[in-house]
C-alpha cells in the first residue's frame, strides 16, 4: 500500500479475504483473475468457469497444456481433484439459478444502486461482443466488482447513473477499489472500508455522491 491507494494486486488480495471457506466462485476475465493468487491457503474455494467446469485449478504451466482444458478467457488451465465437467446449457443454468456464491467482475462503470456497465463502451464503430458478461452479472448470490475508482483522467467510475451501456441492473453488491470498498444497493452506495489515509470526504468529492459512512459496521 502506498499512502492512500492500493495497487491492483492489493485490491485482489483484499477481496480474496472476503471469500469464505467452501465458496463456489467465478472470476471474470482480466483483472478478477488476480484474486485467485491470493486466496487464503486455509480455505477451500471452488472455481467455476462458465465454459463448463467446476474445480478449476491454476493456469497450466509449460508441459501441462491441454487444448481441451481452458478457462472462459481461453487460457489453458488445470483440473483439481473433485472437478466436474458439464455443457454450456447446464453451466449457465447453474449461474442463472443462483448456485454460485460469488462472482467477481471488472467494470467500466458501476452505479450506486448496483447497475453494472462492463460489456461495451458504446463507441459507434466498435464491434459489439457480450460473451457471458450479462449472465455473470446475475450469476451468483453475491456479485463483486473490482476496479480503480477513477479513470486515468480522474473521473469517477462509481456514478449516479451509468452512461455506458448497462450489463445488468441493480446486480452489484459490493465494489472493491484502490481507494475504498463500497456496498451498493437500492438505498445507494455506502463506504464500508477506507484505504490508507483516504477520507470519506475525498470520496464524496471524487464521486459526487452522497456516500453513507458504514466504516464502523462489521463487514
Amino acid at each position, binding site marked *: 500500500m502506498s499512502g492512500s491507494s492500493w495497487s491492483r494486486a492489493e485490491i485482489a488480495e483484499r477481496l480474496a479475504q472476503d471469500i469464505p471457506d467452501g465458496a463456489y466462485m467465478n472470476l471474470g476475465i482480466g483483472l478478477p483473475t488476480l484474486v485467485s493468487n491470493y486466496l487464503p491457503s486455509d480455505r477451500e474455494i471452488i472455481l467455476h468457469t462458465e*465454459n463448463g467446469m467446476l474445480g478449476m485449478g491454476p493456469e497450466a504451466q509449460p508441459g501441462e497444456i491441454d487444448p481441451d482444458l481452458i478457462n472462459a478467457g481461453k487460457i489453458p488451465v488445470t483440473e483439481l481433484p473433485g472437478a466436474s465437467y458439464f455443457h*454450456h446449457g447446464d453451466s449457465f443454468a447453474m449461474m442463472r439459478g443462483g448456485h454460485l456464491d460469488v462472482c467477481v467482475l471488472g467494470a467500466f462503470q458501476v452505479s450506486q444502486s448496483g447497475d453494472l456497465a462492463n460489456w461495451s463502451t458504446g463507441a459507434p464503430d466498435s464491434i459489439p461482443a457480450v460473451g457471458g458478461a450479462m449472465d455473470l452479472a446475475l450469476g451468483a448470490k453475491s456479485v463483486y466488482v473490482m476496479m480503480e475508482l477513477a479513470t486515468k483522467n480522474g473521473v469517477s467510475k462509481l456514478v449516479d447513473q451509468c452512461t455506458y451501456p448497462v450489463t445488468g441492473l441493480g446486480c452489484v453488491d459490493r465494489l472493491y477499489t484502490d481507494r475504498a470498498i463500497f456496498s451498493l444497493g437500492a438505498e445507494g452506495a455506502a463506504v464500508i472500508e477506507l484505504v490508507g489515509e483516504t477520507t470519506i470526504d475525498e470520496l464524496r468529492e471524487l464521486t459526487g455522491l452522497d456516500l453513507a459512512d458504514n466504516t464502523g459496521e462489521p463487514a
Partner: protein
Amino acid sequence: MISKTTASAADALADLPDGATVMIGGFGLAGQPVQLIDALLEHGATDLTVVSNNAGNGDTGLAALIGAKRVKKIICSFPRQVDSYIFDGLYRAGEIELELVPQGNLAERIRAAGAGIGGFFTPTGFGTSLAEGKETRTIDGRDYVLEHPIFADFALISAYRADRLGNLTYRKTSRNFGPIMASAAGTTVAQVDRIVELGELDPEAVVTPGIFVDRVVETGDRFEREEWADVR
C-alpha cells in the same frame, strides 16, 4: 444394423443446402469441429446462417468460411477477439449480419429448441440494449425477458468417442456447446477421434445419446497432433 458412421466429412455434409442454418460447436478452439468446418468450406454451400459462440479466429476454420463470404448472418455471443479480423472487416463493411446474444441466453435458446420449449423467461439481458423491443415480465418480483428457441438445419460438433449408434462422450471443457447443439438441429454431424465397439462406452457416462446424432466421422487421435503433445 444401425451405423451412423460416415466415410468422410465431405460425405457427411453432401446434402447441406445453400441458405441453411448451421450450428458450429466450440468455445474458442476447444471443441471446434475443425475437419467439418473445412469440409463445409470445400462443399461450397453459401448464404449460410451460422450459430456459434465466436466468429472465427485467424484465417482458418470458421474465419475462412466467413472470409469466403459463405455466411450471410452469424448468431453469436462474442465475435470480437484479438484475431477476429476477418469477421471484423466484413462486419464494418456491412457484408455480414450479426445477432448478438448473451452467452447464457444463446445456450438456453439452443437447449429450448432441442427440448420442445416454445419460449422462456430469462433474467439475463433485462434492462440492456440487447433486450430492446423484447417482451418482458416481472415474475415473483424478478424481471425477465422472453426469449425463443434457435433451431438449425445442421449442427457440426466435435466429440471424443462415439459408437455406431452415435452415442458420444467429450473431453474436458471441449464439451461446451456440443450436447445442446446436437439436440437442436435437423441433422447433427459429429467428428470424433475414434469410433469404438458398441458396449465400450459406459451407459452412465454417455453425454449425448445417439438419438441426437445422425452422422459420425472419425478423424483420428487428437494426441497425435502437436497441440496435445503435453498430455499425450
